[in-house]
């Protein structure tokens, strides 16, 4: 029922512009896989190559082990949910859902029954005879999912399907999509520029930048062990310091920055002499009243945000380097004020040296 998807050195060029650059990834049957990346990085192009609307300039797309070269979208076991849903406005809801069955010559009574069954699955039991224009955004979303499920695809392709919804509904639909995927066991390939969405829903995430696949890993590895500076900076917040690798001491190295020399661990593929930056997550940057033995910088608090379950503090050191630190609010935390003198203290284990560009994160909300 579900099939794996294999991209084998896939490249897509539009004229001289390379939208997808030598991407290889093996997506397992039944997996929930996300492509995550800023807008314009080639995500939709990848999806369109898998669904068959465009043919890769180089490389192979295999679905269920079969080479898909030359196969049109109507010959592939995939169903694409378009970014704008592309429901048929002139058909009632049930005909939209049953369109794929109509194409396959299923008789009307059966089509209708199946459409109603799918409407129950997506929790819209009374919508069969409604017009598409009568539905809300979230309801249209569900109809699009039902329409794609109706053809019993082996692979579902979803192009930022939640981006048009408001925050509340989006969070609800995340869980819903995940549940539908688990129930149907169909391979989901999901595209998003929203890191929260990708991390929360996926079995594995592929992070993309400028047409290149930067890292493929399970969500916690993407966050905890980013492959390079781009992945680290695109996913989650960071303190980023520039400097030079100076020495080695038992698994950790020394990293000399204008703000001081710190011990840190080397990221993947990073060695002495490389042009690297130090990345430190805000939750690992402790704000302390006393200086630490090592990895400690005196700072002045510039801004404090009380977020409820955690407290976020911005600060700056004598060299003008800014820091962001987050502490969980356990009820007893003392909230610092602006201008307070503190120390940023962290462990070398948590500071990782990475190479590569830093993403200019595109802001969504």
């Amino acid at each position, binding site marked *: 029922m579900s099939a794996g998807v294999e991209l084998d050195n896939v490249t897509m060029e539009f004229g001289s512009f390379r939208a997808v650059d030598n991407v290889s990834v093996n997506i397992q049957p039944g997996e929930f896989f996300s492509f995550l990346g800023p807008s314009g990085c080639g995500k939709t192009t990848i999806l369109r190559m898998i669904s068959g609307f465009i043919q890769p300039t180089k490389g192979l797309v295999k679905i269920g082990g079969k080479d898909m070269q030359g196969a049109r979208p109507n010959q592939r076991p995939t169903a*694409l949910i*378009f970014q*704008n849903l*592309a429901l*048929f406005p002139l*058909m009632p809801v049930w005909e939209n859902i049953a*369109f794929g069955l109509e*194409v396959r010559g299923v008789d009307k009574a059966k089509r209708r029954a199946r459409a109603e069954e799918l409407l129950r699955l997506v929790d819209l039991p009374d919508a069969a005879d409604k017009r598409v224009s009568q539905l809300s955004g979230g309801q249209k979303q569900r109809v699009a999912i039902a329409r794609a499920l109706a*053809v019993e695809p082996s692979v579902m392709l979803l192009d930022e399907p939640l981006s048009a919804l408001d925050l509340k509904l989006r969070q609800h639909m995340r869980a819903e999509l995940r549940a539908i995927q688990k129930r149907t066991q169909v391979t989901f390939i999901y595209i998003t520029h929203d890191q929260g969405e990708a991390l929360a829903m996926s079995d594995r995430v592929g992070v993309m930048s400028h047409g290149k696949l930067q890292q493929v890993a399970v969500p916690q590895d993407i966050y905890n062990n980013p492959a390079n500076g781009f992945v680290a900076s695109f996913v989650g917040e960071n303190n980023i310091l520039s400097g030079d690798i100076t020495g080695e001491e038992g698994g950790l190295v020394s990293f000399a920055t204008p703000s001081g020399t710190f011990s840190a661990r080397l990221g993947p593929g990073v060695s002495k002499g490389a042009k690297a930056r130090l990345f430190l997550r805000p939750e690992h940057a402790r704000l302390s009243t006393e200086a630490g033995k090592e990895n400690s910088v005196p700072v002045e608090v510039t801004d404090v945000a009380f977020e409820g379950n955690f407290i976020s503090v911005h600060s700056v050191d004598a060299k003008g380097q800014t820091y962001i630190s987050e502490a969980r609010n356990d009820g007893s935390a003392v909230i610092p004020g602006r201008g307070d003198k503190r120390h940023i203290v962290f462990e070398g284990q948590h500071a990782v040296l990475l190479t590569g560009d830093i993403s200019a994160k595109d802001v969504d909300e």
Partner: protein
Amino acid sequence: MSDLLNRYGGLLTAIFILLTAFWLLMLVILPNIYLFENSFRPYLPVNEMGGPKDVYSLNNYLTFFKSPIHMNVFVWTIIYSSLVTLICFIIAYPLAYYMSKIAPDRIIPTLFLLLFVPLWVSEVLRSFAWFIILALKGPLNSTLLGLGIIEAPVRWIMGFRGVVIGLVYTYVLFMLFPIYNAIQSLDTNQIEAAEDLGSPWWRTHLRVILPHSKPGIASGAVMVFMLSAGSILVPTLLASTTSRWFTEIIQQWMFESQDWNTGSAYAFLLLILCTVFVSVVMRVFRVKLSDIAK
């Protein structure tokens, strides 16, 4: 209106409005009212006009229904106008689809230019051109003969053939542009969605593209049909001995018999009957007037 005032000032604006009103009133409304009024009056020698015999009646209109020949011509005019409309649709729909969804953007201006160039030549000249092209020893026959597609010259201008070809050529763009606009406004993702759900190309057209373009097709069809049925130039110039168009009968009444009264009645009959015919067809195809106006 205030825009016009701001831009051109009071005097010019007044002149514009007066000119438009004059054009509408004197050149469109009044002549039609005059003809309409006359269509109910008998055709009389000048000295009896205004006399006791000059009373309103439906006699001029009844003349048509008493003449099987005229009714016959009318029916054939409707049939061949419908055929012209159908052929225009068959030509225009694929072309409109190609232009709006397949042709690369950069060749669109060239395509439009190629389509428009013939319109710069007057209708009379174009019809004459076709007369020459279609002639027994004309270029079309010699080309087809030369290519070995036909063995003997074809008599193109026979029956309604010449008229149909001429009318299709003259009015096909009136079909093309509304359909082009309609398909243009269809979200390409819908076509792709249909294909992605397994639909073969013909079903995508049947279920997605055609229904969406229905208003465009309807307005194109109404225009081509009405223009064809009301055309006088093409049916006259490309006529054969057996092709009589209803407008030619109107012309006979007016210019050969000098009977403008009956001629007017026939002209209004053509308008009324064509409108009825179009309404019936629209009902059959479930098109609403409001769809067309969109």
